[in-house]
């Protein structure tokens, strides 16, 4: 049972702050590190893995610092995002070499076990240069697991995987988490995190925007005001009709149509057609304007 502890950790590059004053604990089980690109997720993972020093604060694994401490790799496995592996080796050679670098008693046996876990046995004798991106991801996971670590860090592990591979990897990570390992993976895709982890840490612009149970955070995300751009044959009349509804936060008349802010995405979408029909208005355009993940995260950080 291993806990990763962040205490007021910041990391900056020159005068750019990548991670800003983060305090959190990551315990056994699967934890998703969610956030848009550039939010600081990789920086967090690299600091845990001992490949970046915190500029400020302390980061420890059960009280032991990871920076300048290669011994930590006996307990930790890392799957980096970069798709660079020793492409001239076969999958089996790569995983066995990693086992030997860990000085495992039976490197071939450990490699076979890890390759089996990631379902790469059939392709293990092919050179990695011939692998698809998804297969490279899996052989990297096999190498990271070969010493049976307590902690597994994965940076965007599902990139390049097809749906079947993705499901298999999610199942594998769930099992590893259920066995008591501390699994932390980063993703910018909400659905990946939703399927895999009960606990999430949401990063936005280097800050921890939300932390804890996924469902509670998801509720916060879905209850936020949504903004729609609407164009009709009579914008002013529709605005008057919408203002009387519970779910309407605000309506703004602009030269290009209406901006409607609503607290209930579903109710608004269901009723807008009926309202325009009852008011004898022709609806020509209905666009949600803030559905990007960044805007969801922006809302979280503002609240």
């Amino acid at each position, binding site marked *: 049972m291993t806990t990763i502890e962040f205490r007021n950790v910041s990391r900056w590059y020159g005068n750019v702050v990548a991670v800003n004053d983060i305090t959190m604990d990551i315990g056994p089980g699967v934890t998703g590190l969610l956030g848009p690109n*550039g939010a600081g997720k990789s920086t967090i993972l690299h600091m845990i893995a001992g490949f970046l020093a915190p500029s400020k604060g302390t980061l420890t694994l059960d009280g032991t610092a990871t920076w300048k401490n290669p011994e930590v*790799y006996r307990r930790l496995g890392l799957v*980096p995002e970069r798709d660079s592996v*020793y492409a001239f080796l076969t999958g089996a050679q790569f995983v066995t070499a990693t086992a030997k*670098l860990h000085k495992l008693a039976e490197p071939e046996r450990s490699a076979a076990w890890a390759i089996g876990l990631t379902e790469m046995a059939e392709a293990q004798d092919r050179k990695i240069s011939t692998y698809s991106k998804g297969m490279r991801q899996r052989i*990297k996971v096999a190498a990271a697991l070969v010493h049976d670590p307590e902690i597994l860090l994965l940076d965007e592990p599902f990139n390049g995987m097809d749906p079947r591979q993705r499901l298999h990897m999610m199942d594998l990570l769930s099992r590893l988490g259920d066995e008591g390992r501390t699994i932390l993976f980063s993703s910018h895709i909400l659905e990946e995190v939703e399927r895999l982890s009960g606990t999430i840490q949401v990063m936005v612009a280097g800050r921890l925007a939300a932390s804890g149970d996924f469902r509670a955070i998801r509720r916060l995300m879905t209850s936020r005001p949504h903004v729609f751009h609407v164009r009709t044959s009579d914008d002013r009349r529709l605005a008057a009709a919408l203002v009387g509804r519970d779910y309407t936060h605000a309506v703004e008349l602009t030269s290009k149509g209406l901006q409607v802010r609503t607290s209930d995405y579903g109710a608004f979408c269901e009723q807008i057609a009926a309202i325009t029909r009852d008011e004898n208005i022709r609806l020509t355009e209905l666009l949600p304007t803030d559905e990007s993940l960044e805007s969801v995260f922006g809302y979280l950080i503002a609240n």
Partner: protein
Amino acid sequence: MFNPVVAGITVRATLGRRRALLFAVPAVVLIALTLVLRAANPVGVQWPANVLGTFGFSVLLPLTALIIGTGVLGAEIDDGSVVHLLATPVRRLDVIITKFAVAVGLTALFAAVPELIAGLLAPNSGKLAWALFAGALVGSVVYSAVFVLASVVTTRAIAFGLLYVAIWEGALSNVVGGVRILSIAHYGLGVANAIDPEKNLQAGLGLSTSLILGTVITVGGLYLATRRLQTFSIAGDPV
């Protein structure tokens, strides 16, 4: 200290790259030049020491050492695959020593051995051939330490190495005598000249100076490279 797994991967990675073909080019040129001169047999010219000393120690040895020394670790740092090696409990000192040993071995194979072969092919140069071989071995050791260090310190290690070889060793050390104190080529020539004294080698340093400075630079370079690798960082998110 020497890790055979790291060494095996390094040798395969180094020889498997396309630029591995470059290793052999200076060696082939030296041997071809020697064969041409032997066939031409110019009268009254002491060409073996001039050609093997000048071309061998100012072109063949430093360029070969540069390509190999900056590649054994630098290529893995450039493409990011070094993370798979460093995310294991292997001591950073062991990584550096192993990479250095591979660089020395390959540089000796592609520079010192061809120097010996060319020396043995040249007329009346038996002792000189072995002297140059010994000098080239010393040069392989010191160059490798410096270029491995450069590859850990900067992503522009090849540019740094070319500047050092061309400007410092190639131009300045022939004009300003004091510069030779920090010229690895002259350490090699100093050793060769001590074994087979030959004025055409234009050795600027004695044996003891060459060995002491070569040792200091090698040990210092490996120490600094290890320190640097201990604080190896991966760039974080693009911010």
